[in-house]
């Protein structure tokens, strides 16, 4: 009994400082994002105006009672609104590429907790700003905009929680892979980040549900990892997709991308290029 209890107690003791470090990094990142620049509010305003325009677009396209590929107007409005509420989680990305580019990865690697832990804490901290400056205002504005922000039903809400967690895992794994590829192939981080955002904007289905895309593009895109990041959680939330199938595909992509990221990290860690500032 004692021989089993000791390792468990040791793990918990080791977990304590790790959890504290992650918590501190989260706080620092959140405070830095909030205090970094009031001018970041411009981006928040842009996101809010953009969602207002997109909602108006759907209203100009579909009338009440009309549907497009099974999506009614109410569902599309909720889809777009919730897509913006969780925009940062549905396209999760980190500063890992910048850390490599600036050379700060060197300091990060000697910190007394894992790089992955630092990435997660940093990303979660940065979300605080978007949550306060965009998600809450949009949620408050939703009734004025005539949009019901609630999930389709309780089952959709419960399934949405693992779905968005899987979405974040896939997103961060892709981010990690691209950052390592950036270092190995000597690409600029802003180029990779912009390219990723541009591709994801079309392939992830966070703005337009994939099923609605012309030329049958959605039937191909729905199987790509980007759909597991953006489209799957939103389909689950709005009750527009097959929950079990969507979660299964997401789990599959999360496993594949995480394994790929871990493999690339092991292979390139020693050859990692610190580009310098």
């Amino acid at each position: 009994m004692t021989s089993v209890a000791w390792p468990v107690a040791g793990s918990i003791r080791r977990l304590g400082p790790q959890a504290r470090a992650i918590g501190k990094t989260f706080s620092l990142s959140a405070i830095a994002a909030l205090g970094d620049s009031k001018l970041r509010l411009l981006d928040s305003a842009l996101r809010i105006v953009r969602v207002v325009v997109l909602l108006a677009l759907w209203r100009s396209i579909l009338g009440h009672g009309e549907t497009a590929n099974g999506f009614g107007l109410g569902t599309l409005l909720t889809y777009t609104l919730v897509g913006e509420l969780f925009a940062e989680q549905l396209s999760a990305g980190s500063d890992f590429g910048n850390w490599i580019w600036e050379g700060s990865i060197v300091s990060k690697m000697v910190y007394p907790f894992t790089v992955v832990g630092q990435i997660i804490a940093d990303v979660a901290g940065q979300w605080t700003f978007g949550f306060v400056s965009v998600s809450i205002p949009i949620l408050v504005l939703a009734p004025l905009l005539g949009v019901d922000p609630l999930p389709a039903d309780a089952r959709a809400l419960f399934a949405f929680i693992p779905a968005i967690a899987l979405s974040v895992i896939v997103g961060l794994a892709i981010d990690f892979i691209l950052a390592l590829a950036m270092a190995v192939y000597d690409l600029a981080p802003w180029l990779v980040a912009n390219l990723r955002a541009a591709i994801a904007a079309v392939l992830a289905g966070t703005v337009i549900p994939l099923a609605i895309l012309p030329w049958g593009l959605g039937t191909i895109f729905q199987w790509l990892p980007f759909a597991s990041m953006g489209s799957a959680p939103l389909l689950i939330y709005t009750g527009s997709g097959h929950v079990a199938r969507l979660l299964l595909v997401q789990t599959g992509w999360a496993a594949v991308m995480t394994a790929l990221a871990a493999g690339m990290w092991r292979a390139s860690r020693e050859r990692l290029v610190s580009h310098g500032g």
Partner: protein
Amino acid sequence: MAGRARELTRLWSKYAGMNLLTLIRSRRSAAIEIGTDVVLNVAVVSTSLLLAQRFNGIGQWDKYQIFFMLGYAMTVNGALNIFFGYNLRMISRRIGRGQLDHMLLQPQPFWRTFITEGFMPFSEPSVLVIAGAFMGWSAARLPAGVTALWVIALVANLIASGGIVMAFQVIWGAIAFWAPMSAEEISSSTNRMVLQLGTLPLNVVATGLQATLVTVVPVGLTAWLPARELAGPGGPGLGALATPLAAPVFLILAVLTFRRGLAHYAEIGSQRYLSFGHRR
């Protein structure tokens, strides 16, 4: 006048040469630079493009009118990237990082440096070629048809829209004179506004918001309003003059704001300047 034109041409050809040398240093980097530019610019217009194709138009606009607007927006952005690359379009970076000193040190007027230094005719034209072809293809399918007057109105509006985008960038970017660190990336935010809101058909939004988006934040003048006037069934009317008339107002505002910022800069300089051109 002829001397000034000669000097501008000489500088543009110098910068064109440097741009070519940068581009051909490696086939891989050239392919990446050109390829990513095309992907980014097409992705920017993808929402409106895909919706217009799927629903055969958006609101009262048919799909060719939407395509024309998107081609117009891409043409404006493509042309600006050619003439104002190397962070001239993102002027807050130059100001915030103290790199303005490099421009002020040159033995020529600042305005001449500004309009020549960012010239990138070899790494950026792919977007302009695609945009021009797309705009031409959709223009041929517009109800009013293409006439000589229409072409003149189009060119005038394209130049005016480009001027408004640059004025908007400079007006906001000038904040970096007073807040060099926190406003260093403000031009990226305003550029995102132009790219993301400027490619949406704004006729679907409420009048109040529409008015804001053609005055305070003039993204509506960068594609939507000119396209509405040029792609309408009656051909270009008096409305086609709106953007060319608004452009000088925004440009004057930009010059005044920038001059004020420059006066402030002359007094305090930059604490972020490093001799190798990067920032602290």
